């Protein structure tokens, strides 16, 4: 292994090593699930209860209400706001080694995240760029030294002379007093030991954080039952916790839908898409102004409660101002389901112009059939592949499965296409889709989604007289309009 090889391997290990593994539903557990249910619910519900109890009683260091010159003033608005409200703590804890001083200057901590601002200076007190520090360890522990597992993932953002170290979700613990361990072993090319231990007092931030019940339930026309459980208001963010599950009727419909897709393997139970859905929310104030979405920024994975798509989910957004009234709006449900779009054409016609079919408000246009390089990793590379380029204009459809599951059969080394398009010639011969491409182009003047798709098959060696294309599955968006006023904490006078 060359030096470069070692560095590549180390880089990937460093990136991947920082990831917390999310929870997964193991299909095998489904059979045993009913037996395990009470225990499973116990493990999931208990921490929630603990964190709720904690939040309703909680309190940070008392002396920063008037702290104005915060290092958070140059960062995200949510953090600026929290700092202005006095939730940041001036720390100024430093360590010096080999002529370099590493200092944590300020910390902002609440139940959503901990953000620490650090700087590095040389002996002449000149700032050294924060990315010159090789961070060797970051973790949050309780006062007994037990690591809070949730905080093992961290990120660093650099702004001029300061590094902003962010650790997410410290809410796993009951303790209000925590310790941030921050260690580096190299600054620029100088090896050394810079280890800092900074106490974090969450008392004030937790006192200012409130979990308020919402307890509203809505069942979409598609049969997805949504329970809005609660909203957490914290100094740096707000978050709605909700639970989703399908009604019994919807479950049956999903099973029926799974049987409609032709691509399934005969010997296997149909793949029921209980988990294949997404809800789209936004929060707006009484003037209709939207609140900044923070779901991604807060890194909130869903947690499966059990089978049949039953899960706990969270929607995160910027902290809400007490000067306004807010409403959570459920905009749409996106769901993958059988979707048959069918078109027949003669490839020779395409030499003159594209073939366009308008039907039931749907438009599909075949642009070309060519022989091109393979688009799919798994396709054989030694020959050109028949490539059909088509464009479609469809309302409510945001994705059409091209060749969704590309499974290689070990025995024959053949690609098995499931849940994708079917290409058929005039004699009924079926050409498997072995690769493809999907692109959302935007909206047309009728507000329909303009979609561009490439379908490829290495089984078609020459152009047939006639071709029929049939789709099988698509992601369909259902507009919803469920509005729920969000409870706001009462201001302490």
């Amino acid at each position, binding site marked *: 292994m060359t030096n470069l090889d070692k560095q590549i391997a180390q*880089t990937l290990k460093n*990136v991947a090593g920082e990831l917390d593994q999310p929870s*997964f539903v193991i*299909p095998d557990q489904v059979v045993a699930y009913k037996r395990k249910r009470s225990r499973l619910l116990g493990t999931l519900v208990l921490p929630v209860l603990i964190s709720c109890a904690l939040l309703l009683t909680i309190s940070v260091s008392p002396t920063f209400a008037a702290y104005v010159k915060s290092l958070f003033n140059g960062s995200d608005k949510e953090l600026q706001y929290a700092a202005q409200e006095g939730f940041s703590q001036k720390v100024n804890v430093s360590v010096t080694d080999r002529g370099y001083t590493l200092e944590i200057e300020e910390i902002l901590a609440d139940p959503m995240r901990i953000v620490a601002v650090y700087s590095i200076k040389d002996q002449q007190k000149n700032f050294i760029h924060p990315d010159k520090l090789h*961070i060797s360890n970051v973790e949050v522990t309780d006062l007994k030294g037990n690591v809070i597992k949730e905080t093992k993932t961290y990120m660093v953002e650099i702004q001029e002379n300061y590094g902003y170290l962010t650790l997410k979700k410290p809410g796993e613990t009951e303790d209000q007093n925590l310790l941030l361990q921050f260690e580096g072993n190299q600054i620029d090319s100088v090896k050394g030991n810079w280890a800092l231990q900074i106490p974090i007092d969450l008392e004030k931030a937790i006192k200012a954080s409130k979990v308020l019940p919402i307890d509203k339930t809505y069942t979409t026309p598609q049969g997805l039952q949504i329970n809005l459980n609660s909203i957490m208001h914290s100094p740096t963010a707000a978050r709605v916790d909700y639970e989703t599950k399908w009604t019994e009727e919807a479950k049956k419909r999903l099973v029926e839908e799974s049987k409609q897709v032709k691509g399934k393997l005969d010997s296997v139970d149909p793949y029921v898409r209980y*988990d294949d859905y997404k809800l789209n929310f936004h929060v707006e104030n009484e003037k209709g102004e939207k609140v900044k979405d923070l779901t991604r920024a807060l890194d909130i994975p869903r947690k499966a409660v059990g089978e049949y798509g039953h899960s706990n989910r969270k929607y995160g957004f910027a902290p809400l101002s007490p000067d306004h009234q807010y409403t959570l709006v459920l905009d749409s449900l996106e769901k993958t389901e059988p979707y048959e779009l069918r078109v027949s054409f003669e490839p020779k016609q395409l030499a003159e112009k594209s073939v366009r079919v308008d039907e039931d408000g749907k438009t599909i246009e075949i642009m070309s059939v060519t022989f091109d390089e393979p688009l799919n*990793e798994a396709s054989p*590379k030694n020959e050109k592949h028949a490539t059909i380029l088509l464009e479609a204009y469809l309302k409510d459809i945001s994705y059409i499965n091209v060749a969704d599951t590309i499974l290689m059969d070990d025995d024959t080394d053949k690609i098995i296409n499931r849940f994708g398009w079917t290409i058929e010639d005039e004699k009924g011969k079926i050409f498997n889709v072995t690769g493809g491409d999907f*692109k959302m182009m935007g909206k047309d003047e009728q507000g329909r989604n303009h979609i561009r798709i490439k379908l490829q098959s290495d089984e078609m060696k020459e152009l047939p007289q006639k071709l029929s294309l049939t789709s099988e599955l698509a992601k369909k968006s259902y507009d919803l309009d469920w509005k729920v006023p969000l409870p706001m904490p009462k201001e302490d006078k």
Partner: protein
Amino acid sequence: MKENHHFPIPKEGGQVDFETLVQPHLTSAFRVAFLIVHDYHLAQDAVQEALWEAYQSLYRYDERKGTSFRAWFIKIVTHRALNMVRRKKKTEEYLDSIDPGQNPLESILQKEKEQQIWRAIQMMTLKHRSVVILYYYEEFSIAEIAKILGVFEGTVKSRLHKARKLIAEKIQVNKETQVFTEMGVNMHD
């Protein structure tokens, strides 16, 4: 849901349940998916879908054929993750959308060279990136990678060669940029 009737046939005989088989590989599977798609939630979805697919296709897996369960499962995860990227956006567009300056994970990589390497891997095409991840992170052999991706061994070798070259070039470009910057000269392409 019916019980699963298609467990693989283990060497010693008897049935092995799916969870026992898959659990040891979940962390690694999630990380491979993440390295391919660069998105926590999409990687989670890719692995969850792969779990269902592996479960439903388990009867196809027979370790007596010489493929490890790990390689078989990672193959499904890899294809699921590749599907995710394709589904998300067209590859070129997806690559364009990656802003190295905005990637939080990059800041974890404190060594400048590691940051350059990670950037180079992010900017590669999917076919090169997946080979790099399977070879350097999962430490699969060339033959195993060929089987996972469904390409010839020679193709894997040439992709690895190209990927190394891309990474080396990236490091070199950054070195040159630094030198010029230090000299106070602005570089223009």
